[in-house]
């Protein structure tokens, strides 16, 4: 099992005629993603790599029963595209774009909530259910199927960490990039709840960074009776206070944002907290051991 995405997900690609859209179609199909439609206003009726292109998501959903949308449009257009997909009935909408105004993320989140849909993004590599399907550009060789659910605020860090897990023989159920922005389509807590309910996920690895309050939610989950074992890596131990480190939310503003404080909070909650990247596999093993694996 996996969460959110598997080989039965029927994917519509918005912006399929762009460079990213086209690359995504060839790369993700090779991996097993079931791409059923594309959308490119003004170019409906054509085909990309054999995938039919429609004028609107609603038309694509009508004709192909697409239920999952991948948004590859410029950051200035993500809000419109994501809301179109949600209102056309897609249950899962993924937008990887960074440099998107936070007000747009706020609006998409509100519309997703009102429609009972799930939005993943912005500023994320997407998500992958290893061996089944992927919604994003993550390098496929970094992943293998297994029982570790992974949640990450950072794309490249999740590639690095998952490659280490895979080389060590630790497979993943699903790897979700929740993104580095302050308002997220899916929060760490929401992703944790999904993994909690997934019988095939035995433990969760959380990849976080300085700033924000996601780590407090992770600690709160870990303390809950019956929680699945959690391992974590928080980066930014050496980031100077008061400087935004790339991600809008990666900023040490107060003591609670700091690496030291987050690690202390997580350890106290029983999370297997890695000292650094090189310690990730050991902590993942400890979490899996506690899960009886």
């Amino acid at each position, binding site marked *: 099992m996996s969460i959110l995405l598997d080989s039965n997900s029927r994917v519509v690609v918005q912006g399929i005629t762009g460079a990213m859209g086209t690359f995504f179609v060839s790369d993700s199909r090779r991996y097993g993603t079931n791409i059923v439609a594309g959308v490119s206003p003004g170019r409906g009726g054509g085909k990309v790599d054999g995938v039919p292109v429609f004028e609107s998501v609603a038309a694509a959903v009508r004709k192909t029963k697409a239920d999952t949308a991948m948004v590859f449009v410029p950051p200035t257009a993500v809000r419109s595209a994501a809301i179109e997909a949600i209102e056309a009935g897609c249950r899962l909408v993924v937008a990887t774009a960074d440099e998107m105004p936070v007000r747009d993320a706020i609006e998409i989140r509100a519309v997703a909530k009102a429609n009972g849909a799930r939005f993943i993004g912005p500023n994320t590599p997407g998500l992958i259910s290893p061996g089944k399907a992927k919604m994003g550009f993550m390098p496929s060789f970094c992943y293998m199927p297994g029982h570790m659910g992974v949640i990450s605020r950072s794309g490249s860090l999740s590639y690095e960490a998952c490659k280490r897990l895979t080389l060590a023989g630790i497979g993943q159920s699903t790897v979700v990039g929740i993104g580095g922005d302050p308002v997220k389509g899916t929060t760490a807590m929401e992703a944790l709840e999904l993994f909690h309910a997934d019988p095939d996920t035995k433990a969760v690895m959380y990849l976080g960074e300085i700033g924000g309050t996601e780590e407090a939610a992770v600690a709160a989950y870990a303390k809950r009776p019956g929680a699945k074992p959690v391992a974590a890596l928080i980066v*930014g131990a050496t980031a100077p*206070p008061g400087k935004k480190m790339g991600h809008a939310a*990666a900023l040490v503003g*107060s003591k609670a944002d700091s690496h030291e404080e987050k690690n202390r909070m997580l350890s106290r909650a029983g999370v297997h907290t890695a000292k650094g990247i090189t310690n990730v596999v050991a902590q993942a093993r400890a979490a899996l051991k506690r899960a009886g694996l």
Partner: protein
Amino acid sequence: MLTLLVYALTALFHDYLLFLGMNQARYISIQKKGGIRMMILEHEAKRLLESAGITVPKGILIRSGNFAESRRVKQFPVALKAQVRSGGRGKQGGIVRVNGAVRLKAVAKKLFSTEFGGEMPESLLADPWLPVDRELYLSVTVDAAADGYVVLYSPNGGVEVEGGAPPVRYHVGAPWFFRAHNLRAILEPVEKDFQLRERVIALAQRLVDMAAAQDCTTVEINPLARLKTGELVALDAKIVYDEWAHYRNAGIAAQREGIRKRADKWLRACLDMQHMYVKLDGNIGLISGGAGMTMGAMDLIHEYGGKPACFFDCSPGPTSTRGYKPAFALLDHDPAVRVILVSVFGGGTQMNRVANAMKENMAMRKSKKPVVFRLDGTFVDQVPAIFSTYGAFNHDSLEGAVREAVRLAKKS
């Protein structure tokens, strides 16, 4: 009863605080060096508030080198306030009460020649010294816990907001969810003056609308003063813009252009490529992609006994030769940098293209500073063949590359 004296004390300290509201009762003193990137100047923030129907003091702006402008100040006393994009100016003497024209000139001269948070003021704001009856705290900011905007209010503003009870919070979420009756229920226990309460609710609505329409991530009024006349006036204002809304907001585009203009030519070229650069105090010039991985590499450099010279995220538009060129130029030019470590783990960023971009950059570079590579991710299998044509080596682990960079940094 609060008096002028309290305002004087408040003026010294309220500037030190900027509430980011990410958590209950958390205040942050904003960075001391270089200011918050997308924070606008107080006088700019006050113009924005004014345009949203919020009363601000009728201040006079005195620009550097334009002392003649100070002659427009006719009524004293005034609060003469250095206009800089960082906190702590009050504590550093950046806000001075001035009683007359002669003194104004002397104080202005001094303020213009003083650095506040690493920034020399380009202008001073001379605000009339107003008789304050009570000081309040009101702000709107973006908070994940609220799924969007949150309103914060404290009946005790100014300096008292720091030590007193934390402000109450009204989670708005998307701007269209603002409900006066919900905010009223939250304000009732802390604000007994019902007339004032109603005016605060009206102001809060305007602030939320403004934050959304103007793409502000923080709008803070501290203190919001009730004058002896009963009028509510924003004595100070802090506004932080959302950089990524630059394409739909002229003020944000201008702020970005200002940052670009103030940067030196090396940094400006990097900003034009949308690279994110933060200078640090070490000697290993780290070129990386993705914020998390960059921080992960920084942490490992420290673990192995080295120090990074920068946080340098080159992930936007990274696969072209042109994209990396200004990054190398900046680090080659920086005398503190002894060795350059390129650490990129790409998904959509394809490593064959990065390797070719590196090859072309190495051919163009004149600097002899050593470069250590660790490329991994999509199409990494093509990298060794590309690198072998010009004698570069690609480390297959982050550990190996960092260890080598630390060794070279110590040697040189």
